[in-house]
């Protein structure tokens, strides 16, 4: 008579399933898996390893740490980074030296894999903590990371 045992087992397993989801329902208030969207933009502290977008920090003299070694450009798996560089005469030493003209970063192509930040020998590029990256035109996603008129900090290559 597997007919009746099938009915019995069917109802039993259904009730087991319902007790599991019922437990979830009761515990849902305190144990939500999802989080509220962060509205407190001013006071919010994102966690340290959060990958918002790649930025190039500049110090107060408008100097960055990028030597133009192109390690990030080579490391990038999908060509999100382009470095426009040329050789200029260093005013201090009088020698010709490789200097970046533009550090171009395509946020639209970036997969936030962090290989460029890992590859950078001088920590010139780091991850920003912003999380609202949407724009109305994709041309705004192509960013020049070094500020206009900035130059490499002296002695960073040594």
């Amino acid at each position, binding site marked *: 008579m597997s007919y009746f045992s099938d*009915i019995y087992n069917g109802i039993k397993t259904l009730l087991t399933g*319902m007790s599991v*989801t019922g437990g979830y329902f009761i515990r*849902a208030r305190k*144990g*939500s*898996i*999802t989080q509220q969207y962060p509205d407190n933009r001013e006071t919010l502290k994102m966690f340290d390893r959060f990958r918002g977008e790649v930025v190039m920090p500049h110090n107060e003299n408008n100097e960055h740490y990028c030597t133009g070694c192109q390690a990030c450009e080579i490391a990038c798996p999908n060509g999100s980074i382009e470095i426009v560089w040329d050789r200029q005469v260093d005013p201090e030493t009088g020698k010709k030296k490789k200097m970046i003209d533009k550090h171009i970063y395509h946020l639209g192509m970036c997969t936030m894999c962090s290989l460029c930040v890992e590859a950078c020998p001088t920590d010139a590029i780091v991850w920003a903590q912003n999380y609202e990256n949407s724009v109305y035109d994709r041309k705004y996603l192509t960013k020049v990371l070094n500020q206009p008129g900035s130059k490499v900090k002296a002695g960073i290559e040594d």
Partner: protein
Amino acid sequence: MNIPLNITKTIHDWLFSIMPEGVATVTEWVIVAAAYLALFAVAGLYLVLLERKVAAWFQLRLGPNRVGPWGIFQTMADALKLVSKELTSNANIDKFLYNLAPYFVILSSLIAIGVFPFSRQFQALDINIGIFFLFAVSSIGVIGILLAGWSSNNKFAMIGAMRSGLQTISYELSVGLSMLTMVLLTGSLQLSEIIEVQRTGGWLILQGHIPAIIAFMIFMIAGTAETNRAPFDLVEAESELGAGFHTEYSGMKFAYFFLAEFINMFIIASIAVVLFFGGWLSPFGITDDITWFPETIWFVIKVLGIIFLMMWFRWTFPRLRVDQLLTLEWKYLLPINLVNLVLMAIIIWLNWTI
């Protein structure tokens, strides 16, 4: 003596005092129709919201909480969006049937809602074949679904509609037979009469004990299948058929299907409440002595309880396959139901009811 009684009676007397009888009757019809339409819209919108909230809690999520406090205006915003959207259609559809289908679905549920006794006086139409009428009207909805699938000229919609046809035809049998089991106990098809029977003898699920409980379980399973809700939502199985029979519908026509699904859930829950849980009667008569207490509240509380049970089913069980669906109906529910009907008859014959 309760609030709905006073309001309806006052309005009735006032209308008949200020205008001739014929005009007053027509005005009353219009007022009742408007009230039921409003109830329909509000109930539909808030059931959608409730479903989304309950679903979120079952899945340990937060649910809609951005529009208004706790998201209570979310479905209003959705409805506004749907109203403002364009009504698109395909090139080779059957235009007449395509436009007709949503109205079949929504009208059938709107007609059915009219016969429910929300309280002693809050009932638009108390006909003596109430249960039979409900059963007949609520099965018209499937015509709308079949028409929608057929006229869309889309194979997914077509498959969804055909599945709906076989599902509804199969499960109507179980719904009808489980209703019939309870009608044996009450000896009446009139909804107000069915509730009056329960005033003295206790709720029918207690009166009929074992067969009533079996009938209730079968009714809940078959009722869930009737409303095309998960785990019986083969009709609009998203993973297989896109959106099933309403794949080609947009804007307000889609919203009609969507609202009708939730109103159908309300209807099935209301039938269950009337047939098994005493309708608007309070448990053990605890509020019978309080004159101002609206009986409608008990009705709504019970209906929400049943609806919660259906939502619990939906977010627990996986979707059935077509052959499993038919096996469940024809090999399990139907024989059990027939035996149950005989069992109920024997119990009434031997007077074993509580």
